[in-house]
């Protein structure tokens, strides 16, 4: 079995797929090994799909963290169970495929608010890579949307608003942005704008509404990309090993990373493979645990952890959730897609950054009537008609941006999961001010529901969770304030990179995957440039040596 590669990538999700594809497209014979801890779960399988339709079962849920494998401490429960897929393809096996760019102010959070952190790069540094990422993920978006600067149109037209979105659009049109205590520039106001949710797809969407297990490969899944790479005859040195958890990164000096050690879960054998460059792309949970577990004579507290920063600054999103009720639904509406189509960025702006930006959207499943369940329960046609056209529930939700804090930390706890990965504890607390801000933001959502003529029946701030965890090996300008540099290279190493949400200094108010993909494209560009410079340097050195030898040869003659 081959044990020396140009690149070793730990993790088999979207970051790994993007990076591997970029490197291979640049140089076809590049040798790359991807090590994925989880198994391969078959996609687009008809039996799996029918079981999902008829029984609600999804074939990858057995890979989720169990509650006892991933707990939390602090003044609020941090949901870590059931949020990440540990399998070939990673969490794109189950993601919603919402693809939103971070906004320019997200890269300057500390400068703007005195809290959280700044990125060592700006939005402008990433903008062209966002274009690449949107093309790669085939993002369906609205070119007329102006909520974020962009230099290229979306590659695919947007999904239209559904009929059921209409009432919320009208309510938004009637509401001004209401500034709350703590918002910046309270004198400046603008209308709440409606937007169309950008969604990634891989092939033409046939709207089955079963995005959580797409039967036709319509929703983007990193597994499809990795399959394509494996089957491409140009890429003869590309290999993926599943069931292969990495538990140690090995060094030959402080700066030189030499290899990784993993276990083949099926045979029980342990292997060490060497890589010229090692990329940790295994997510914001696994990356910090692996770094801290990799202790040696040069890194007493784990690689990159000389300043005790690995695993700190956990950032998540809190979900704001307001439900409204109407007495009737004469059109028999329900949300026909399995994802939200209506969104607003009116509170996802710099003015709202101090208090906490929110990204609002109409919930992906309301209004809805589970007609089949009513039939199963023995309701007659007439009774179901009453329900379909009767009381209607609509839910508005928002992600609330949170700011990284030193005391909030993710770390390994004793014991391993079924895949041989260390279990997790998240220490996470919110401040009283954050709780107050979240509740204030809820009031805006309640106003929208009331403007729609609905009665508010529920209004709550859901617990934070691991769905969008970022910040656990964050980028920065020095080892004193961060784990990685602006190219996501671990400080004081030559060849160890983190390509993960872990490297994000802030989490914005939107989903992180598009930004992660853009960062992966940027990393590919950096690695290619680095490789080119090394090649040129080696060529120059060789030329110099040849010249000296020629001179010596002439002198001796």
């Amino acid at each position, binding site marked *: 079995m081959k044990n020396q590669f140009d690149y070793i990538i730990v993790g088999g999700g979207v970051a790994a797929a993007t990076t591997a594809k970029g490197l291979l497209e640049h140089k076809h014979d590049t040798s790359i090994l991807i090590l994925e801890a989880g198994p391969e779960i078959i996609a687009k399988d008809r039996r799996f799909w029918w079981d999902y339709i008829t029984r609600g079962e999804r074939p990858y849920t057995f890979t989720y963290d169990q509650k006892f494998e991933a707990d939390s401490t602090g003044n609020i429960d941090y949901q870590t169970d059931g949020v990440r897929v540990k399998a070939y393809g990673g969490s794109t096996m189950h993601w919603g495929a919402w693809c939103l760019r971070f906004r320019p102010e997200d890269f300057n959070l500390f400068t703007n608010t005195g809290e959280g952190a700044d990125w060592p790069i700006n939005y402008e540094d990433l903008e062209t890579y966002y274009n690449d990422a949107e093309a790669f993920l085939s993002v369906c978006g609205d070119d007329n949307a102006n909520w974020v600067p962009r230099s290229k149109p979306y590659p695919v037209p947007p999904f239209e608003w559904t*009929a059921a979105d*209409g009432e919320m659009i009208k309510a938004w049109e009637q509401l001004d942005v209401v500034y709350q205590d703590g918002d910046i520039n309270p004198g400046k106001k603008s209308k709440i704008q409606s937007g169309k949710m950008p969604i990634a797809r891989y092939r033409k969407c046939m709207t089955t509404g079963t995005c959580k297990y797409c039967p036709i490969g319509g929703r983007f899944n990193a597994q499809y990309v990795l399959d394509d790479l494996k089957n491409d005859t140009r890429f003869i040195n590309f290999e993926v090993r599943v069931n292969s958890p990495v538990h140690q990164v090995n060094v030959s000096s402080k700066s030189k990373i030499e290899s990784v050690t993993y276990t083949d879960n099926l045979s029980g054998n342990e292997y060490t493979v060497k890589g010229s460059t090692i990329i940790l792309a295994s997510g914001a949970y696994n990356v910090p645990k692996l770094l801290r577990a990799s202790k040696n004579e040069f890194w007493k507290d784990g690689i990159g952890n000389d300043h005790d920063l690995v695993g700190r600054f956990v950032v998540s999103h809190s979900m704001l959730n307001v439900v409204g009720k109407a007495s009737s639904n004469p059109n028999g*509406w329900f949300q026909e897609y399995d994802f939200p189509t209506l969104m607003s960025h009116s509170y996802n702006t710099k003015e709202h950054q101090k208090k906490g930006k929110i990204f609002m959207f109409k919930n992906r499943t309301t209004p809805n009537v589970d*007609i089949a369940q009513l039939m199963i329960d023995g309701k007659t046609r007439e009774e179901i008609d009453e329900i379909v056209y009767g009381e209607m529930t609509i839910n508005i939700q928002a992600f609330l941006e949170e700011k990284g804090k030193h005391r909030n930390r993710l770390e390994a706890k004793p014991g391993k999961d079924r895949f041989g990965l260390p279990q997790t504890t998240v220490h996470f607390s919110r401040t009283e001010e954050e709780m107050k801000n979240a509740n204030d933001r809820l009031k805006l959502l309640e106003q929208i529901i009331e403007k729609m003529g609905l009665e508010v029946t529920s209004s709550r701030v859901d617990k934070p969770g691991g769905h969008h965890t970022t910040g656990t090996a964050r980028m920065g300008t020095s080892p004193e304030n961060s784990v990685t540099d602006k190219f996501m290279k671990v400080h004081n190493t030559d060849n160890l990179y983190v390509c993960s949400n872990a490297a994000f200094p802030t989490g914005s108010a939107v989903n992180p995957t598009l930004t992660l993909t853009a960062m992966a494209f940027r990393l590919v560009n950096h690695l290619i440039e680095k490789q080119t410079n090394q090649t040129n340097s080696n060529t120059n050195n060789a030329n110099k040596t040849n010249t000296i030898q020629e001179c010596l040869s002439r002198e001796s003659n």
Partner: protein
Amino acid sequence: MNKELTSIGGPVCNETLPAGLIFAEGQSLTHQNKEALWEIFEAIGTNWSNTIYNSNNQRSSWYEMLKAKTENAPNYAGEYVNAIYVINELKAMYGTGGAYKKLFFESGLDNSAPPTTRLAHCKIYVVNEFIRMQITAGGFKSWGTKYGGEQARNYHGFLGGTRYNRTPRVRAYDPDTNNLKNNQE
């Protein structure tokens, strides 16, 4: 075991079984079995009036599901044959139409409880799954039009889209015509 669950049936329906899927690896359905099962599927459409034309529009999808569930583990063949036993007994007791009415509307079963009788196995593993299949395969379309509303185009599980962009995938928001009914209410 939930005793009232068995109230509509005779000795076959009432026979107790473990709650898990009836073991059937290596078994396959006969043509006659499939015809009997198709009758259940058709009866669902008839009893809820939720097929716009007739159930035959869904036959190929239904058959594909049957094939997937009996040619891959875990094999449903045992459940399907059990359902036929149950229906036969109910038919003998109530006649064909009455049997389905009893099964669909008056079974008294707790659909969330583990099935521990032949009747409960029939309802949970076969009838309930056929209902979900029928709705997601297009049965939902019959709802939404009662008050002159636009027909729903999509539902979770429905392959409603096409490769042609001109075919609308869902009822889309049209500010000029949408929401009129709600405004009039």
